[in-house]
């Protein structure tokens, strides 16, 4: 058995206020009990699209709360059949990552199914699933300066899409955002420790060897974004908000780009994602609580009915679009958002400086004997590689 206790910061004041206040809001605080038990299950992450490419299927195992990430399910036989005799074999390119060989794209009218045989001989099959629509298009992807429902000001990223044939209905969005970072306290030099003498440590100021001033940070969506158009008069989404960035977020500071992927899902896949979203979100009040439970997907064990398999085998239509904008485009002449953290240079010498260098979380801002020598600053302030990559992405347009 395995046990973990999850403790978090307390909010006692809030709780008392709420209790006085009658209930409605109740009081939400970290659970102080113990959560026990661990279940080791196979996790299948399989999305086949109408894009012609080496389709990717990931096989992993569930993992304990104190582990950083999953273990790969290696050496499995993975195939997708199209119901008409066609079979696509997937090769393991990296541990747990299986790519189809050769590339293919999902086609309308074919009933795809997934079969997996793991290294220990267990077999799994999925339900058959069809491509819901031959293609889908993001008609428009645009950014606007706006306010969200909470009244915060910032940038909204919106999508318009329309399917006159009313075939699409179920949409899911993913995004990948990239933003330029300029380290505010970047200096051309760095300081290195040379030798320990009886008089104390000796340092040397050197020229930085790599680009550490301008970088590109990347992030992706943290929540599941699904929406359907069933209740709307048309199969149309207009001004659908995919992403909102508060104007005080430093990622808006210079130039920003977002790639939005639109998937048209089958009703089953949509239900699965929606349930998954419901299970992973905080309930909005004490009184609306989702019944949690193991969420079965569409993959089942051939040998043992009772075995739980997490994940889903999905066939979806995809389209993607990218846009760019700069802070100046929407906030001309206005003050930049505050940097991700406060940046100051603080003088350090001798053993102190050596300690700072050993910890490795600060860099040299500048060497200024008049101010006492080495002015050190947190890495994120003086070296942008702490936050992103110093390589200009291939797609980047200034």
């Amino acid at each position, binding site marked *: 058995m395995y046990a973990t206790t999850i403790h978090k910061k307390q909010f006692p004041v809030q709780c008392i206020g709420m209790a006085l206040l009658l209930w*409605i809001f109740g009081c939400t605080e970290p659970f102080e009990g113990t959560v026990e038990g661990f279940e080791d299950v196979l996790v299948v*992450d399989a999305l086949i699209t109408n894009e012609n490419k080496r389709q990717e299927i990931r096989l992993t195992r569930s993992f304990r709360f104190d582990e950083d990430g999953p273990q790969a399910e290696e050496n499995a036989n993975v195939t997708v059949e199209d119901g008409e005799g066609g079979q696509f074999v997937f090769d393991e390119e990296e541990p747990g990552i299986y790519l189809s060989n050769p590339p293919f794209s999902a086609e309308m009218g074919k009933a795809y199914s997934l079969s997996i045989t793991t290294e220990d001989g267990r077999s799994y099959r999925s339900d058959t699933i069809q491509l819901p629509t031959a293609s889908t298009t993001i008609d428009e992807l645009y950014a606007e300066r706006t306010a969200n429902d909470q009244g915060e000001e910032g940038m909204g990223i919106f999508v318009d899409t329309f399917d006159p044939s009313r075939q699409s209905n179920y949409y899911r969005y993913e995004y990948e955002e990239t933003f330029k970072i300029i380290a505010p306290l970047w200096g051309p030099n760095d300081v290195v420790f040379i030798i320990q003498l009886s008089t104390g440590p000796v340092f040397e100021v050197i020229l930085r060897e790599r680009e550490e001033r301008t970088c590109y940070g990347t992030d992706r969506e943290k929540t599941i974004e699904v929406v359907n158009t069933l209740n709307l008069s048309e199969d149309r989404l207009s001004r659908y908000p995919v992403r909102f960035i508060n104007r005080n977020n430093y990622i808006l500071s210079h130039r920003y780009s977002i790639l939005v992927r639109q998937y048209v899902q089958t009703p089953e896949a949509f239900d699965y994602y929606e349930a998954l979203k*419901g299970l992973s979100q905080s309930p909005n009040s*004490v009184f609306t609580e989702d019944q949690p439970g193991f969420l*079965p997907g569409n993959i089942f064990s051939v040998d043992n009915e009772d075995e739980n398999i997490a994940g889903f085998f999905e066939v979806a239509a995809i389209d993607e679009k990218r846009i760019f904008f700069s802070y100046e485009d929407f906030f001309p002449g206005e003050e930049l958002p505050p940097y991700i953290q406060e940046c100051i240079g603080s003088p350090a010498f001798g053993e102190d400086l050596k300690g700072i260098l050993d910890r490795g979380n600060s860099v040299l801002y500048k060497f200024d004997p008049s101010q006492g020598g080495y002015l050190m600053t947190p890495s994120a302030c003086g070296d942008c590689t702490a936050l992103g990559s110093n390589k200009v992405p291939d797609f980047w347009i200034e």
Partner: protein
Amino acid sequence: MRSITTIVLLLCFTFLMGQEEERKVSLEIQNKSITELLSEIEQETDFQFYYAEQWLDTTALDKSYKNESVETILTDLFQNTQINFFITWDDRVILTRNNSIYGNLPEGFFTKPEQVETEEILQENVSAGPILLGKQNDGPDKVLETIRIGRERKTNRRDQLTLSGYVTNTSTGEPIANLAIVVRKLNIGAVTDNTGFYEIKLPSGLNVLETSSMGVESSRRNVIIYDNGKLDFNLEENFEQLDEVVVAADATRNVEDTSTGNTRIGSEASKNIPLVLGERDVLKIATTLPGVSTAGEGSAGFNVRGGKTDQNLILLDNAVIYNPTHFFGFFQAFNPFAINDLNIYKGSIPAEFGGRLSSVFDISSKDASNTKFKGEVSVGPVTSNAVVEIPLAQEKAGLMVGARGAYSDWILRSLDEENLNNSQASFYDFITKYNHKINDNNELRATAYYTRDIFSITSDSLFDYSNRLLSLQWNRKLSEKSSGTLMLNNSQYKFNIDFDGSTNRNFEQGFQIDETELKLQLKYLLKESHTIDYGISGKLYSVLPGEIAPKGSNDIIQPLAVPEERALESALFVSDNYKVNEKLQLDLGLRYSFYAALGPSTQRIYREGAPRTDANVAGSETFDNNEIFETYGGPEARISARYLLNDSLSIKASFNNTYQFIHTLSNNTTVSPVDTWKLSDRNIEPQQANQFSLGIYKNIKEYELSLEGFYKRQNNIIDFKTGAQLFLNENIETEVLQGKGKAYGVELLIRKNRGKLNGWLGYTYSRSFFQLDSEFPQERVNDGEFFPSNFDKPHDLSLVLNYKLTRRFSFSGNFVYQTGRPVTFPVGNYEFNGNEFVLYSERNQFRIPDFYRLDIGFNIEGNHKIKKFAHSFWTISVYNVLGRNNPYSVFFVSQDGEIEALQSSIFTIPIPSITYNFRF
């Protein structure tokens, strides 16, 4: 005053017999009151004393008697007081103040009973002038009254005689319902019905009849009965007595009633239970009884014997009330002053009730006084309420009007918490009842009731729900042996959500259910041993399952209204209360329920052998207006039996079978105001339950004990797939799972109804399981095995105690303990689609921590001057004295890829409150 015209009649020969065996007593007392001394005599001898405590001096005495007769002792004790005493033939000692009772009657008053041969004298109610010594006192004291009914005849001696009559309120002339009339020594009793009528079987000879009920003076009468007869009681209201008897438990009802699992709660009972925010609540008391539990603190809905929260039929004056609570269950939706009583049926449900599987909560409102203007007012920290009773026609008609409101908005606004400043939460309810006694045979009652709650949790949405109820009742006495009641009831429940926040997705959405019922119920006294109840009822439902409309012209929300659903639910019922013999009594009930789903409607047809999903629709069928497109129904047995092992011990057994055609759609454990109701149709079948119960009941002195066991099976209970989308779903069957339920348990109740310390202890051990199985894995939960239901709480203990310090001060305390309810916990993480998710266990594999809570209260009565305008009392209470942080639920959220375990709780600190009440 009329009641002082006391009648004292006793037969001389019996008295003389008593005197022949005069017994001697030796007593040594130090520093004891007369009361204590008298109880010592009671312990030493067979004598029993009858007196009012307030007559006796409470100063301590030192006395010593050696081998004295009781008569001598009493003469000594009372020599300088106003107290007289009288010893009856059966060693009862009746103390009176001012008046003395003579055992001897004027000569020739009676013919000697021995000489009566065949003369038939029926139902003679003999009365004679009082034989009293001393001046009559106009005060409230009563002397024991003796009533003689019939005459003793050697040839026609029957062991069991029937005494019946009406009990009315002296000052108002209204009937007094639910009054217990008992012969304590024999443990026989009867309870008056709504018209104040009672019927009691007595052995011939002398019986001491006592009456007791909340708010009515207790009275005691000697009844010498030799034939069937009639006796009416006129009783005074009595405020002083209110808090002396907490639960109006009828002394013998526990043992003698035929049915299992029934409890009556008088509205007054709730007075002595510690309150949250100063409100009396009969529904809260219900949850302290075994077998009834709430889903959580401050949550609406009850789970009765392993049943879901939608399986309780909650009636107010015969009409269904869909949401009986305000503020998500923190307050009952009834004005506490307007409620007369609440009867809970969780074991054997009478055949006249149907349509819900687990229980009936039958609440009746108060009849207005038709002689006197009266009122009751209570002022608390969050709510205030008032009821007035207005006589409209003297001794004929009265009107009761009650109103209640909450003013919590100011609390919300005055708080520092910024996100609560914009919140709003208020409620009110209104009740009015008209009662009219047209003549001796006809009576009319009409009730109107309305409740409304308005609240907003976030600044952009406003919730609003309301109950509306109308009920008309006509009682008619058809003949000496039969009577009938015709009822017309209408109920409506609706809610509305107003969302105004987003740029172009603002909306208004709502739900509404209406039902109208016509019911005729007849009672026929076939023979002495058979009482037949029968009737017919029909109910028309109309449900607007949901609609959504854009708020403004910019909003792109497409208006959608899920089409109206209609159905007719009707029933025929008959039951026979059959007294086989003295020991065995049966209640044989049969109900036939019939349900017809009415068009217009479009019903989907799903492919056989495939899971019910949108993808597996084979077609659909459309039905015209009023076309019956689906019918369900069947017989329901309501059988119970009681066997008296002796006067204070009985066993009872019952079998109960119920159908339910209407279901709530809720994926919460608790009742939420936005739960919708769904009528059975082609794809949603009615729920059905069978329950067996067996119990043993015992009265020991002032203690009432009962131990009941039950076993219940349910079919087609409604549950939902994980993360189901319920609202505005036209094809709800794609989200519904119907399965089996299984529950069993043992319930123990120990009650003490009298004395300075009174209260009860309820303990339940019970289990409740569901099974959701299907040939399709997606429609299976926990591999199709039985799993503990959301409200499976094996141990449930409630202790309610009152201690009366003095006449004016009393303490009350209330302790609750429950096993934590089952929950589903995470058992790991997994990565999917680039994000980390929680892997949950099988459903309900774990439990939240146990629940316990202690509340205390303190009542201060105003003084008891007779001529005072109003009677008042203060209630001070502290809810959750221990400050226990009882988790209401535990849930897990993944935030920025991290899993966090959170618990939500309602009251985490002690909540004090103070309420001022008065009545006039």
